[in-house]
């Protein structure tokens, strides 16, 4: 029976949204990214040794390396994001490196939407009370925040208006529909 199964990502039923004009909005699901919650006492050195990147110590920030990003979510909570299909090894690496912390695989618990394009900030501002001006929310900023009727983890991944949004799996379709609907008039206007 071993090969009978298939994995289905939370937004497998939605087609990505392209930004043909380059003036609008692109939206895709980033499937199966490994996502690990780390809670408790975490030594910066241990993380550096394990993943080669620093542990974000400041609220509203993230540290990124080639393969991984670590997002500060709370004074004793981080989200480690890694390439697809690496969650098992990531859990074991982290659990070994961080004996005093709780390391929980939440890969399947969250969906990740990448939103980018000139309209991205505007559309996000329709849902979150967070100030997304580059002065306040620059590349590398990350936080959990309110978004419309749900909670998201927002991560600005570059100087360009490109964001990764992690949302609880069961609400992924809601968020997708919401972003699609909110941006529709502007996408229509670009047609």
């Amino acid at each position, binding site marked *: 029976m071993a090969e009978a199964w298939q994995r289905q990502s939370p937004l497998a039923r939605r087609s990505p949204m392209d930004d043909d004009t380059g003036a609008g909005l692109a939206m895709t699901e980033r499937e199966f990214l490994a996502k690990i919650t780390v809670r408790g006492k975490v030594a910066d050195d241990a993380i550096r040794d394990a993943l080669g990147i620093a542990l974000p110590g400041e609220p509203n920030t993230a540290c990124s390396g080639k393969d991984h990003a670590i997002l500060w979510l709370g*004074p004793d909570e981080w989200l480690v994001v890694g390439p697809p299909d690496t969650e098992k090894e990531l859990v074991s690496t982290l659990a070994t490196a961080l004996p005093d912390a709780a390391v929980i695989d939440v890969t399947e618990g969250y969906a990740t939407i990448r939103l980018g394009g000139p309209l991205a900030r505007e559309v996000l501002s329709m849902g979150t009370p967070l100030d997304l001006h580059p002065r306040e929310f620059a590349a590398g900023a990350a936080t959990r925040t309110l978004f419309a009727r749900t909670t998201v983890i927002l991560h600005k991944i570059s100087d360009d208006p490109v964001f990764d949004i992690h949302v609880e799996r069961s609400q992924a379709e809601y968020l997708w529909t919401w972003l699609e609907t909110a941006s529709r008039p502007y996408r229509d206007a670009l047609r």
Partner: protein
Amino acid sequence: MMLIPCPWCGDRLDAEFTCGGEAHIMRPDPATASDAEWADYLFMRENPKGLHHERWFHAHGCRRWFHMTRDTASHRIVAVYAITESAPEASG
């Protein structure tokens, strides 16, 4: 729509938080507390008009509880302090 200074995340809209009501209510020893003392702990509240020490939870953010002193009439926020701390004296 208050702007609440989360001790961790900084200023955030009040809708990201849950208010946990009056702070510094001691849970009495259940073995010795009288019915009246237990009722006092469970239900009785200062509910002042003016400065109020209260507990807040950044539910949509860092998910930390903290203390805040706020004027219930003007909604002015006077102090924010750790959940493990007792009320700052200056703020009454």
